[in-house]
Structure formats: C-alpha cells, structure tokens
C-alpha cells in the first residue's frame, strides 16, 4: 500500500508538467489552482509516505518494538528494504519540510526587502491607483504583498509606456495582490526545491508561474479588444525594451511569447467541461492518494486495537 502511495505522490508532482499543453487551454486561474492543489497533495502525501516507511526502523531503534512491528505489518510486504530503506526515508521525512521552508524563504526574500519600499516610498496616484514610483533605470513593475499590498513601478517604466499601457501594468500588479499570488509563488518555489529531482516537475512549476502571470494579464486586459491590445503592447514594450540584460525571465522567451499570444486572442472563456477532463488525472491520483491514506490509517487502527497477546 505504501508503494502505491509513494507512486501516487510522485505522479501528483509530475502530472502538472505532463498535462501542461492541455492546461494552456484552460482559463489560467483554473489551471493555476489545479496545479497548486496537485503540488500541495504531492507534498503532503510524499511526507506521509516517508514517515510510514521510516516508522518501523525508527520505532525499533527507539525501543518501541511492539509499535514498530505493528507499523511494519501495516506497511505490508511491498515496502522494500528494512533499515536500508527506513533510515534514508527517516532522513527524507526530516529533509522534505526543511526543503519546503527553504523554498518559501527563497520566495519571501525579495518581498522582505521590498517591504521597506512599501513603507518609506512616496505614494503617488498613477492611472487612478495608489502606487510607489521608484527612481530606477530598469523598466520594472512589482507587487509587494507587505503592509496591505503596494504596487511599485520604476520611473523608467513610467517614461517608457503610454498612459493606457501603464494603467494595464498597474492593473496586472493589483491582480497579483488581489489574488494573493505571492502564496502561489511560494508554493511553486517549495515544489521546485522538493521535487527538483523528478522529471516533469520543473515543467509543472514553470507552468504554474506562467499561469500566475497570465491570470494577472487576463485580469488587467479584460474582454475589451482595445484594453487587451494595450496590455499586449505594454508586455512587448517592457520585454523588448528591457534595458538591463542581467537575467533571463523565467521560461525566457517562451513565457513572454505565450502571454503575448494569449492576449492576441479573445479573453479565455470559463473552463467549464474542459476543466473536468484536464483535471481528471490529477483528481484521480488525488483521490487514490486519499483512499490509500485512509486504508493505511484504518489498517493501523485495526492492528493497534488487536489483543495484546496477538502475535504481530
């Protein structure tokens, strides 16, 4: 049973990457939520799997022989390896939460520094919104989730874009704040650190980040053709006219092209039925993981409630 749970956990981590071409056809908000759910389930189930594999060996070492035997019996014969697998799994069960925290801290680091800009920056009204304009030669717009959420734009961006394009950029950043996208970014970073070893997981993480940006694009662009055009032009202006050449954007050109192409067409319709069949594999694996976990807990309960003299 634990082998099944392990396989399902890893499938849940790899599935968003495999389904990415189908996910692009969904509304980005639906796809981002689906991928996030899959990653959360994968992280929880993978931790549970490692704990269950490690339990017999660790409990035996701690002197709880009866409980260790119960756990070993509950794990079933399919779990390979005894202590050769148990101790690495115990190490993994400790390392995984640490990796999650590392990913989240990495994602928070820039926001921590920018929180100061939100506090001390001089607020001004731009495109009818309260923003902080910073004297920077790079065309940059970022959302800072600290202190109630602030949009920060650079002077270079203000000078480079026309008012409609600037309004689109500000709406894009406000959408990030409204939908609390920084939490999804933290999850993406945690999944990247934790499942970096898994083929396909990286693609799923990139897909989540791209979906987050497209989600904000769609919120900013709405369904009016002229507004969509302004948003698209702003995206191209900032991407093409970027002054600094210090780092590639995530996913590089592919991500920008995907976003430009999406804004070139009409606003995406609600995902409806497409969401059902695109998410079906993730939902099935998620249900499978839950079912396995319930079975394992039920079996544990049964074994522990046996009479003491029963040989286990």
């Amino acid at each position, binding site marked *: 049973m634990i082998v099944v749970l392990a396989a399902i956990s890893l499938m849940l981590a790899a599935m968003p990457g495999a389904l990415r071409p189908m996910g692009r056809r969904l509304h980005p908000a639906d796809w981002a939520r689906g991928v996030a759910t899959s990653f959360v389930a994968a992280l929880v189930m993978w931790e549970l799997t490692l704990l269950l594999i490690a339990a017999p060996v660790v409990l035996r070492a701690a002197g709880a022989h009866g409980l260790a035997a119960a756990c070993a019996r509950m794990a079933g014969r399919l779990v390979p390896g005894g202590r050769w697998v148990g101790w690495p799994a115990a190490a993994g069960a400790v390392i995984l939460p640490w990796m999650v925290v590392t990913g989240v801290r990495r994602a928070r*680091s*820039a*926001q921590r*520094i920018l929180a100061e800009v939100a506090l001390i*920056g001089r607020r001004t009204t731009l495109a009818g919104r309260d923003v902080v304009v*910073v004297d920077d030669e790079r065309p940059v717009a970022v959302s800072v989730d600290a202190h109630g959420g602030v949009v920060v734009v650079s002077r270079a961006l203000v000078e480079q874009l026309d008012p409609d394009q600037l309004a689109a950029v500000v709406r894009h950043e406000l959408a990030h704040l409204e939908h609390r996208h920084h939490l999804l970014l933290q999850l993406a970073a945690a999944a990247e650190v934790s499942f970096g070893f898994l083929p396909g997981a990286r693609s799923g993480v990139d897909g989540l980040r791209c979906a987050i940006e497209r989600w904000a694009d769609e919120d900013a662009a709405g369904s009016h053709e002229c507004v969509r055009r302004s948003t698209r032009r702003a*995206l191209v202006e900032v991407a093409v006219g*970027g002054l600094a050449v210090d780092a*590639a*954007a995530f996913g590089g050109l592919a991500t920008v092209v995907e976003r430009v192409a999406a804004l070139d067409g009409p606003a995406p319709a609600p995902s409806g039925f497409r969401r059902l069949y695109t998410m079906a594999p993730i939902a099935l694996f998620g249900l499978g993981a839950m079912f396995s976990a319930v079975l394992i807990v039920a079996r544990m309960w049964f074994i522990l409630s046996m009479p003491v003299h029963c040989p286990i």
Partner: protein
Amino acid sequence: MPRKGVGPLEAEVLDVLWDLSGWLTPGEVHDVLALRRDLAYTTVMTVLTNLWEKEILERRRDGRAYAYHPVQTREERTASTMSAALTSVENRPVVLTEFVGQLSAEDRAQLRRMLSKQ
C-alpha cells in the same frame, strides 16, 4: 551581509526626518510624532539610535543631545532598496510577481523578429 531594513515605527521616524529635513534632536522628532500618536520620548530615542546603528541616519552633537539626519534622501533610499531587491536575489524572476522579467539580448531580438512578422 544581510541588508538592514526598517520596521513600521522606524519608517515613521524616517518620515519625520525626511519631511522636515535638516538635523533634528529626539525631542523635536518626538514633538512631531506625538501629534499623531501616543509615543514615549525614550521610544523615539531608541528608534533613532537603532537607525543610526544601521547606518541609515548620521548624527552630530547638538548641545547635550544628538541631532540626527538621514544619510540618503527618501528617493535615494527607496531606489537603493528596490535595486537591492532586484539584484541581490538569487533568482529574481522566480520569486517576484514582476510584470515581466528581463529577457536576454538574444531573446529580445528574437521576439522583435517574431512580432515584425505579424
């Protein structure tokens, strides 16, 4: 070395120093802040000392007290903080919800070619 940021109370004190400009003693800063909120004189003095220790303020003797002055203007401080966030982070596009990250020169040229064909 990690960048020493400022907290909400420190930002309020900095606000006063920036808005009034010049060199201000703890008493003068306290007088302004006391109009907005209930704050002890010793708290203001502690905050000013903390900001001086973080090298955000400079100070000089003014009679029996010290007078404080920001090392950078508000605009310089926000710009340098923004710059620190954008350049010091290991993988900036991955951790920030930017409108768009910076493309390499090659990517920009390719995007320009693609768009010119449309």
